[in-house]
């Protein structure tokens, strides 16, 4: 394990000498002057360089290996996006600059919004929200404002039990009560069960399509009809939009409002790689409620910021959104074009189905033998050997793979959720599948204790998650 900076050998000899020519200001009273050395660690430059390089080598990233983390979509972030977005023309602008001097920036945002409309079938987008869940929250506030404007009291939001946890959470924070909808074995919605709980108090239902089991919602048109006949709205969680680009649009399925996670579908860096962005799209009748300011184009083809929207839910973030993230996604769309984006979705779906086909008939797949961009295995057959999905995922680390998502969605027992994304080769997929099959069908039977102890070859062995949660040590001593 790499030592911490203050554990590295330190000597009295400074790592670097700076001759200061700044004289001490005589006005500083004696009592306030430092008469001891500064107490900084004194580490040779070469040791320091090694320290940081070694730390970086302990990272696991898309640039080091396969990252099949289902639901999270650990998509490749093209380097050209990083290169362009680091150009000073973008990094040195300031949101307080006169509007005439940032016309290009506003044009990119305006055009990006139009591109999102074309891809999703929505009419307007707001780019202000700083993350997907922030987008959900904005969407739900708009739903609340909408019903206020038509003098209807609707206090409930329906969320299926296969949904992402952010759905009920966002709805709750926007002031709604949550009604849970039990989903079917493959995570889909039964229109009949939906009808039973669809009262006049229901403001909206939040759906993820394809759902978290990687299955397309076959009854979506019927669901849309039932929901709208009840006067309720249909909310699209864009978490899995990356499976549908250029193939089918949420707007055409009947959704009224949606959010997109730019890191999932449009290759912005994932959490930790920078701030997020969660654009919200709406059909025209919800436009008045979008956050302000709105970026608009006036009759002289100039881009302006419109703050005068009396029904808007207001401002959700300082300034105009995380522009440099939006920029990366804008470049992604422009570089790939309509055909390229469609190809991204097709390949993501093909890769997932290839993997699923190799597991089929050997491992339980609750949602059946076809999927969209991801699928969920149930490893409950291993429970009889005292092996849990957690053990299998820890063992995958020993083989140099990042482990897939486990224990989500909650409706699948001993779930393992795999999402390969579009950029992996058949060879990489085969390597991973071979290892996973070896762990499940050989090691789990012949050497189960190895799995219970895994990871064995990593710097850090099995962590005690329970103890870490019950008695966390929150600072370095």
């Amino acid at each position, binding site marked *: 394990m790499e030592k911490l900076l203050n554990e590295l050998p330190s000597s009295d000899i400074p790592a670097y000498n700076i001759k200061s020519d700044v004289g001490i200001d005589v006005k500083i009273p004696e009592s306030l002057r430092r008469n001891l050395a500064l107490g900084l660690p004194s580490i040779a430059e070469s040791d320091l360089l090694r320290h940081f390089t070694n730390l970086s080598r302990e990272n696991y990233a898309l640039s080091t290996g396969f990252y099949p983390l289902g639901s999270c979509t650990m998509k490749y972030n093209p380097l050209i996006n990083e290169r362009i977005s680091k150009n000073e023309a973008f990094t040195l602008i300031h949101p307080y600059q006169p509007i005439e001097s940032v016309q290009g920036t506003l044009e990119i945002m305006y055009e990006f919004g139009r591109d999102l409309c074309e891809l999703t079938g929505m009419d307007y987008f707001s780019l202000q929200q700083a993350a997907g869940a922030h987008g959900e929250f904005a969407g739900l506030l708009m739903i609340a404002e909408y019903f206020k404007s038509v003098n209807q009291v609707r206090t409930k939001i329906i969320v299926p039990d296969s949904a992402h946890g952010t759905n009920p959470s966002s709805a709750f924070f926007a002031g709604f009560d949550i009604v849970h909808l039990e989903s079917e074995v493959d995570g889909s919605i039964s229109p009949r069960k939906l009808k039973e709980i669809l009262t006049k108090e229901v403001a909206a239902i939040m759906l993820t399509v394809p759902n978290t089991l990687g299955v397309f919602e076959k009854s979506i048109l019927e669901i849309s009809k039932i929901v709208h006949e009840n006067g309720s709205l249909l909310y699209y969680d864009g978490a899995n939009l990356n499976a549908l680009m250029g193939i089918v649009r949420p707007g055409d399925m009947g959704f009224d409002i949606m959010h997109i996670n730019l890191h999932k579908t449009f290759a912005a860096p994932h959490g930790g790689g920078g701030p997020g962005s969660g654009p919200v799209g709406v059909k025209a009748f919800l436009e008045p409620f979008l956050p302000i300011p709105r970026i608009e184009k006036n009759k002289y083809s100039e881009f302006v910021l419109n703050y005068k929207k009396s029904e808007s839910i207001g401002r959700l973030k300082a300034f105009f959104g995380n522009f440099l993230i939006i920029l990366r996604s804008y470049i992604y769309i422009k570089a790939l074009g309509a055909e390229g984006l469609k190809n991204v979705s097709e390949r993501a779906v093909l890769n997932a189905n290839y993997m699923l086909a190799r597991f089929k008939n050997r491992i339980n797949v609750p949602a059946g033998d076809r999927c969209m961009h991801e699928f969920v295995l149930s490893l409950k057959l291993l429970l009889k050997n005292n092996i849990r999905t957690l053990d299998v995922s820890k063992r995958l680390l020993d083989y140099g793979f990042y482990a897939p998502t486990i*224990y989500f969605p*909650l409706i699948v027992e001993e779930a393992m959720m795999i999402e390969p994304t579009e950029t992996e080769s058949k060879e990489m997929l085969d390597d991973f599948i071979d290892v996973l099959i070896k762990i499940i069908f050989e090691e789990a039977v012949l050497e189960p204790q190895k799995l219970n102890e895994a990871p064995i070859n990593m710097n850090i062995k099995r962590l005690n*998650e*329970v103890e870490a*949660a*019950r008695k966390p040590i929150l600072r370095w001593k």
Partner: protein
Amino acid sequence: MINIPQNLKYTKTHEWVKIDGNRAKIGITDFAQHEITDIVHVELPEMYRQVKKSQSVSVIESVKSAFDIYTPLSGKIIGVNNAVLENPEIVNQSPYENGYLFLIEFIDTKELDDLLDVDDYKKLI
């Protein structure tokens, strides 16, 4: 082996209920604690809060996930088991005794009819 005591009533959402006059003690079943796995955090209802049947009043968190706990009866919360806040593992170790969650003074005896007896609960799990 899952322990299901004879003298308790049960719910479909895996709470147990011990009735004593117009009061009831409520916790989660042995089956539930087993499914939830190692519990790391418990949130209890506020004292003297009025609650309605089927309302989520408490949260139990494991390393796997967070689970809502529903009150099977309407009434007033008249006691909570603070010991499980400090040591949530008690709920795993003793779900029916030391690991109970809260006490309620219930107001509608008709709601008792909706509770499951041991045989019904056994069928459910």
